[in-house]
Every structure is written in C-alpha cells, then in structure tokens.
C-alpha cells in the first residue's frame, strides 16, 4: 500500500523543497456563519506552502492578506438563495473593493464562495438548483480552459483534473449574451468533462473576471490536496494547483 503523506510531513517537505519563501504569502480564508470548508481551505493553503489567515465575515477591515479564499458551505443556511445574505457582510464590501482595485486582490470562491461572488456581482451569472434537484457528491473531472488566471497558472491549458463536487444549487446560468462574452474573453476557466452534473450552461464549472484575479467554481479543489483524503483517481491531489498557482504568482509578482 502506498505511503500517505501526513499534513505535518507534507508541509515540511514543501519547506525543504525550496517553497519556504512562499510561506510569506498570506492567504485569507473567510468564515461566515454556516461556512463549512473554511478549515479545509486553510489546510490547502498550508499544504501548498502558504500561510492561512482566518478572516471573519463581520470584520470591517481586510487584514493584511495577499489573497482571499471564500470557502464552501451553507452560509446562512443557503435558505434564501445560496450566498444571498453573506454577500452583504461587512468584509465582503472590502473584498469587492480590493478585487476591483488596481491591486487586483486575488479572490477564489469555491462552491458557496462562488455563489457569494455572483451575488456580489464580482462574477456574472448565478447558480440555481441542480437540474436533478438533489444534492450530489461525486469525484468530478474538469478541464482547465484558462490557465492564465491567478488561480490556474500551475495547470496546463486543457489539463483534465479530478476534484470533488458537492452541492445542491450548482447549476450555472447566465443569459446567452453573457455566456458568449465569457467564451469570447476566455473567461470560462473550467468545464465539466464527461458528465454535466447539474445542468450548467455550456458545461461551465467555473469562471473568472476579466482581469483573471477573481475565480469562482462549484467543485472543491481544497478537498483534493492530500493523498488519501480526496478522490481516488490520480494521487487525489489535483486541487493543489489552485493554491500553488496563486502563491507562485504572488511571489513572482513581488520579485
């Protein structure tokens, strides 16, 4: 049986392999009431070699972070619409401003985080109930359509990755004009391959903003960062690239 790296060892290995300077990059992970995957996102940041900083939705200042992950979960129970209430959190307006500013704060929205980003109009379109109406948890194959964003640069264009998908309201919709524009501008970041798990328009799994600093997707890269705790295909670590991408970009940018 293959040896599985432990969290502690993997972090040490990242350090040993010269990734130490990345530890300087501070990636904020926002917790809303009802967030679920915040600790997982923080672990992914650590495993990628960065420093995870927890951010609280009610904070009115954005702590000194170099990037932000808005994690998955059911913020405010998803009761009204997924992301609808969280969007109005004090910290969200800071994040929106920073993402749109010249500094172009990198922001990754995963699942509920993606829904919050669309509700905040940082990303176009919206999510409605899965076409089959059920919660669905599965290992999902995605194609990386755009590897020039802050969060995808460590992938090859067209690379297929497998990461978990798990949601009830994951059907991405936007009007035809918006969809055409997204395609034309290369802002479709990920597409479902083989099976469209929720009826999303044009098999879209994730998109980015025009500048490429804001990325949102429904599947969960933070659940595919450690062998033995993610999908069984490959090493189960196909999601790690999201976090190393932003860390490398940040370090590259700082140099």
């Amino acid at each position, binding site marked *: 049986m293959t040896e599985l790296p432990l969290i502690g060892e993997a972090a040490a290995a990242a350090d040993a392999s010269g990734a130490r300077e990345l530890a300087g990059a501070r990636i904020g992970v926002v917790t809303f009431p009802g967030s679920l995957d915040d600790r997982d996102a923080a672990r992914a940041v650590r495993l990628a070699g960065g420093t995870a900083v927890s951010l609280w939705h009610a904070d009115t200042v954005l702590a000194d972070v170099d990037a932000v992950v808005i994690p998955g979960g059911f913020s405010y129970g998803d*009761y*009204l619409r997924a992301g609808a209430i969280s969007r109005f959190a004090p910290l969200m307006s800071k994040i929106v401003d920073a993402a749109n500013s010249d500094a172009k704060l990198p922001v990754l929205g995963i699942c509920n985080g993606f829904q919050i980003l669309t509700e905040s109009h940082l990303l176009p379109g919206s999510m409605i109930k899965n076409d089959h109406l059920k919660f669905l948890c599965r290992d999902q194959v995605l194609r990386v359509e755009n590897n020039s964003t802050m969060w995808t640069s460590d992938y090859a264009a067209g690379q297929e990755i497998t990461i978990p998908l798990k949601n009830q309201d994951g059907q991405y919709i936007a009007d035809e004009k918006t969809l055409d524009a997204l395609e034309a501008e290369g802002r479709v970041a990920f597409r479902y391959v083989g099976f469209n798990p929720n009826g999303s328009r044009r098999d879209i799994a994730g998109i980015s903003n025009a500048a490429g600093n804001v990325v949102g997707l429904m599947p969960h890269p933070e659940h595919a960062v450690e062998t033995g705790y993610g999908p069984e295909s490959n090493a189960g670590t196909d999601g790690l690239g999201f976090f190393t991408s932003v860390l490398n970009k940040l370090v590259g940018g700082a140099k």
Partner: protein
Amino acid sequence: MPRIVVDVMLKPEILDPQGKAIVGALPRLGFTSFSAVRQGKRFELTVDGEVTDAILAQAREAAETLLSNPVIEDVVNVEVVEA
C-alpha cells in the same frame, strides 16, 4: 395564456428557518420595519385555454396533494391570473 397561482406557506405554528434567517439579515441592511418574515412558495400553473371550474378544482386538488405537504404547510391562496 391564463395561469393559476397557488401560494403555499408553512403552517404558522411551524418553525420557518428561512424566514428566520431573512428577518435577521434585514436590519443589517437598514430595513428595520419588519418584525417577522416567513418564506413560502408560489406556483404558477399555465392553462392552455379557458380556466373552467373543473380545471380550477384540479388546481386546488393538486395544491393540496402535490404542491403542498399538508403535514407542515397550508395552501393559503389559489387564484386565476390572466396573462
């Protein structure tokens, strides 16, 4: 085409977590005039042609059997709306 609107609400004595979340959020957005919120469902059934009494009766029956769960919900309204 005419539509029949069916409104379904959780029974008043039943906890409505959705309404509760909304009523908590409203004041944070400056909407301070509402003391309670309940969230229900609205169905619009399209009828091809005229809404006869028989069709309206069907809608009422569908409302009670399929569109609502009588254990926890009430059908509060069934009405015809002309398009």
